């Protein structure tokens, strides 16, 4: 960062306060909570990908000692409303337990309640379900065919969403361009798979008419959706936000788990716990991620400038859909990536099949889209024999062009993409990497350099909701913070959502401390429950640095203004003549005349006679903040401001592939990262590194693979492979700061960083390595076996040709 440090605490390398409780094992995770007389749930799941549920016989289960109840879908359906869907698809209802038809293998069909989880599992095995298997469909393209089985007969097709947007003069731009090419790439079904599964405890007090919920949750409007499903007012639902969530990265949206457990708690009058086991989670937790086919056409000129793009994104959302189809809509806010593409045609298709249900995955569809966009650069570079770095430089939006409005209506706030790529390449010594690549090739290895440059839209105003569902006219996305100074002069700030490791308490304390000029370590940050909270939309869409940081900032400013006003009145000077410094306020003209922090606290709390007229006593302030930009509905042609702020990252990888074994190895990983002002460097660094690890998994290791019988064959960690410390190389991060003009400190989001570009960079690197063989890999994940087979086949063809 150039220039003088403008901040006292922001951007300083301070410890993350949450770490202290985690290192001693005092995290407060949902499964750690024990309530008296608590009972446990286990699930009965469908073994078939599609089947009519003919009968459910619970008698043997209920006869077992310690078993209290067995719930089926019909009973739950009479007492609850379907779970909220994002799209307008009333004939695709989603419920916690299947009703009459099971639509994927692993779908929850019944729930058993017992004294212990072990007994509940024993009993679940004794529930006898008679199924009549039905035809099933697993492939998204097959699901589009007229002869395909219908996952939801009443919906009439398997298509939940099919919407085409045309922004700009697409056909004219294609006609006017000297070159065009097409390609198809596929993003395999993976997800962020936190180590903690979803856990929820519900307890209902019928005298207070109050449902208490502790859950491992990361979900906007969780208590509202729960209340609606159970036909209760949200004021009867108390979600405890002080539960630590063991990782989420989008997927912990256990609304079906919670509705199920809450119903049982009310029905049985005892606290109920569901601690999803790993098999339940993988097969039926509804936490899979996007599974996409991208068909892309691009039109470009002889210098490699991409003028126009047509993209069809086809997503296999699984058997039901909550919010997940919106993952086709969010990327619209950065549909051209960091490039000056003039016009875009985008067709978003969401299709049901008999697979597990998708949930929001880190970046909400942006990473698969970046993978598809970044492939365009590589294709252009290859077609014109240009360096892909040069093609990027030519296509980048230039620093002086910000704010820059893209064809789909979003305006990018700020950025300096050329500076970041230059810094990244300088740090990695790009020329030396190319030389190293040549040297490795000479040794007989396949060696490639992978590059990806992409954006992290941040701030999360979710304008894709009204964009993809015109019946949804939501334009409000709030966050809030309350600050109180107590009679002893200590400061407590509140935040109104759960966290899953993002360090939000540290964020709030740092921002409040910065504004009030007091040590953040002396600022207590607490999380009330949902009934004593102010509005929040939870940590999604890379929004919290912007929104929670913003709300905390504004609340702290209000507090500071109040302190100044109290002091000015007491000193009989104008507010403008007072100066605030580290909690004390003095007369600028005569600094000896001052009121200390403690003086002001006492006046506010005890000396009403000294307060300015019409001022509320005490020192409690709050701020509810709306997203800095947007707040409007889409235009008729589908243009809207999506997120307010855009971070940028540039990945540079050197990798080799063992030509006989097909195993890739990353030798060097450099990433340039610009997320504006960094509030806490340790937190931001962790996000980028962790995001890259997720990206390595998505690119090389992870897939929810199904066999033709509709069974999830990667259903445990033996087959769903998570990167270990061996698979994540040392990663060098190069920083740049282009502040956002929209935020209080210039900060942008960084919660998705690394994941946004790593899969694209790795894929591009592997294809660069394969270039001498004349082959490309077009789908993720790139497994060793598939890569080995492709290489062998290509080498065989060469040998045959030259023979």
């Amino acid at each position, binding site marked *: 960062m150039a220039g003088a440090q403008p901040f006292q605490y922001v951007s300083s390398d301070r410890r993350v306060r949450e770490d202290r409780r985690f290192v001693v094992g005092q995290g407060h995770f949902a499964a750690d909570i024990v309530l008296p007389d608590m009972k446990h749930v286990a699930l009965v799941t469908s073994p078939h990908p599609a089947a009519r549920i003919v009968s459910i016989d619970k008698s043997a289960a209920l006869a077992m000692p310690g078993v209290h109840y067995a719930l089926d879908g019909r009973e739950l359906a009479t007492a609850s409303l379907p779970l909220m869907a994002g799209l307008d698809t009333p004939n695709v209802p989603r419920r916690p337990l299947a009703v009459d038809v099971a639509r994927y293998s692993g779908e929850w069909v019944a729930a058993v309640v017992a004294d212990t*989880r*072990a007994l509940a*599992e*024993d009993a679940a*095995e004794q529930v006898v379900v008679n199924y009549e298997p039905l035809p099933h469909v697993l492939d998204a393209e097959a699901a589009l065919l007229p002869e395909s089985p219908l996952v939801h007969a009443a919906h009439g097709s398997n298509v939940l969403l099919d919407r085409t947007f045309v922004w700009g003069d697409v056909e004219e731009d294609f006609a006017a361009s000297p070159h065009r090419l097409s390609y198809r790439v596929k993003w395999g079904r993976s997800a962020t798979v936190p180590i903690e599964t979803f856990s929820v405890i519900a307890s209902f007090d019928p005298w207070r008419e109050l449902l208490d919920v502790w859950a491992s949750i990361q979900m906007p409007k969780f208590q509202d959706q729960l209340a609606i499903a159970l036909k209760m007012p949200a004021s009867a639902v108390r979600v405890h936000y002080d539960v630590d969530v063991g990782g989420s990265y989008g997927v912990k949206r256990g609304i079906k788990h919670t509705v199920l457990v809450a119903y049982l708690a009310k029905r049985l009058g005892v606290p109920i716990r569901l601690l999803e*086991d*790993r*098999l339940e989670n993988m097969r039926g937790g509804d936490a899979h991620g996007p599974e996409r086919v991208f068909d892309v056409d691009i039109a470009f000129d002889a210098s490699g400038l991409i003028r126009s793009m047509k993209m069809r994104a086809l997503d296999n959302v699984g058997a039901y859909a909550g919010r997940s189809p919106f993952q086709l809509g969010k990327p619209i806010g950065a549909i051209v990536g960091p490039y000056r593409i003039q016009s875009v045609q985008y067709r978003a298709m969401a299709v049901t099949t008999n697979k597990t249900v998708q949930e929001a995955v880190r970046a909400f569809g942006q990473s698969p889209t970046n993978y598809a966009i970044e492939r365009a650069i590589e294709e252009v570079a290859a077609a014109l024999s240009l360096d892909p770095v040069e093609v990027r430089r030519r296509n980048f939006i230039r620093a002086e062009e910000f704010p820059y409005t893209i064809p789909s209506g979003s305006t990018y706030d700020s950025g300096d993409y050329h500076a970041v790529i230059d810094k990244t390449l300088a740090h990695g010594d790009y020329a030396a990497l190319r030389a190293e690549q040549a040297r490795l090739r000479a040794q007989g290895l396949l060696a490639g350099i992978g590059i990806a440059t992409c954006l992290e839209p941040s701030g999360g105003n979710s304008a894709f909701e009204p964009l993809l569902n015109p019946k949804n006219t939501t334009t409000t996305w709030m966050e809030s913070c309350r600050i109180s100074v107590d009679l002893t002069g200590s400061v407590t700030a509140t935040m109104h959502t759960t966290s899953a490791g993002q360090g939000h308490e540290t964020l709030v304390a740092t921002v409040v401390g910065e504004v009030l000029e007091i040590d953040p370590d002396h600022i207590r940050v607490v999380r009330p429950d949902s009934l004593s909270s102010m509005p929040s939309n939870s940590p999604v869409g890379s929004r919290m640095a912007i929104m929670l940081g913003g709300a905390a900032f504004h609340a702290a400013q209000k507090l500071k203004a109040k302190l100044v006003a109290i002091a000015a009145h007491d000193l009989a000077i104008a507010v403008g003549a007072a100066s605030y410094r580290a909690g004390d306020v003095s007369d600028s003209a005569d600094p000896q005349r001052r009121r200390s922090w403690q003086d002001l606290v006492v006046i506010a709390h005890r000396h009403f006679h000294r307060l300015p007229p019409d001022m509320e006593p005490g020192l409690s302030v709050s701020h509810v903040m709306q997203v800095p930009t947007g707040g409007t509905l889409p235009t008729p042609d589908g243009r809207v401001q999506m997120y307010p702020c855009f971070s940028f990252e540039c990945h540079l990888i050197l990798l080799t592939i063992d030509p*006989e*074994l*097909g*195993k890739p190895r990353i030798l060097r990983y450099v990433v340039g990262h610009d997320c504006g002002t960094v509030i806490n460097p340790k937190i931001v660094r962790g996000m980028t590194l962790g995001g890259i690890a997720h990206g390595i998994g998505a690119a*090389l*290791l992870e897939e929810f*693979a199904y066999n033709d019988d509709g069974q999830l*064959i*990667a259903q*445990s960690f*033996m*087959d769903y*492979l998570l*990167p*270990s410390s*061996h*698979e994540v190389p040392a990663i060098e991060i190069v920083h740049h700061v282009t502040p956002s003009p929209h935020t209080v400190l210039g900060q942008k989001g960084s919660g998705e960083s690394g994941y946004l570009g790593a899969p694209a960079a790795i894929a591009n690197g592997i294809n660069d390595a394969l270039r001498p063989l004349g082959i490309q890999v077009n789908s993720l994940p790139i*497994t*060793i*076996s*598939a890569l*080995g*087979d492709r290489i*062998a086949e290509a080498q065989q063809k060469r040998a045959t040709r030259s023979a």
Partner: protein
Amino acid sequence: MKSAPFDYHRPSDIDEACAILAADGDARIIAGGQSLVPMMAMRLVRPTQLVDIGRIPSLSYVRAHAGMIAIGATTRQCAVERDALARAHVPLLCKALPWIGHAATRARGTIGGSLAHADPAAELVLVAITLDAKLVYRAGGATTEISASDFFTGLMTTALPSHGCLAAIHFPASDGGNVGVGFHEINARRSDFAFASAAAQIVLDDDETCRSLALGIGAVTEVPFRLDAVAARLQGRRIEESTLRPAIRDALGDVAPMSDLHASADYRRRAATTLAVRAVMDAAASARGGNPHAH
């Protein structure tokens, strides 16, 4: 994922263990539990009784015995990794051990447990077959010794009777001179189940020609197997890749590799060739260098 209920026994000797097995066909031995407990947690197996032999002192040892190194069935994998006798006289075993799972699984997992489980990708099974080890088991009061090639009969299936319990495994002891070992495996992540693996132990004559070669391939077929044809072809010859590779490729020509989610049959066949070449080359290099553990 809680196991189905069972009764737990901790017998004080192997015969007591076998008696429980004989009386109840659904009783099972547990030693380290690293393979068994995951299967129980997934309810793929549901023993009615678990017979814990993990603390029977007489089953845990490493000792020299009639030109062999005898290892008790319940000896922890980590103990063998550190054992001076094993390191000196069964270098291939010690070369393969770090590849088994993770340190935390080797802390509990036993030599016998992995062999009785007979996973096609198990490193210990490959080493046992490659070195033609002898497995010793007890059943109904009688002791039987059986060679590794006869013990492993099919996919996760062994000749161990249902009322029997593995007692020991005897590896031929190498005398150290001009001996070299090599071990390679390929997996998606280090310490995963291998898609293919190769184990080689070579003895060179003083002129660096091959006196004997034991070469085995694992994870490719339901039971690991030896490439004796390759050993025969290389007898008396210098080890060079130009002759080694075709010999291995030819020997693997008739093999029908498994195919699954992680690796195709073709991939396994090709990888087996590559890994076998590398294992033999490593073994030859370390034999020439005079240190069987080198490379």
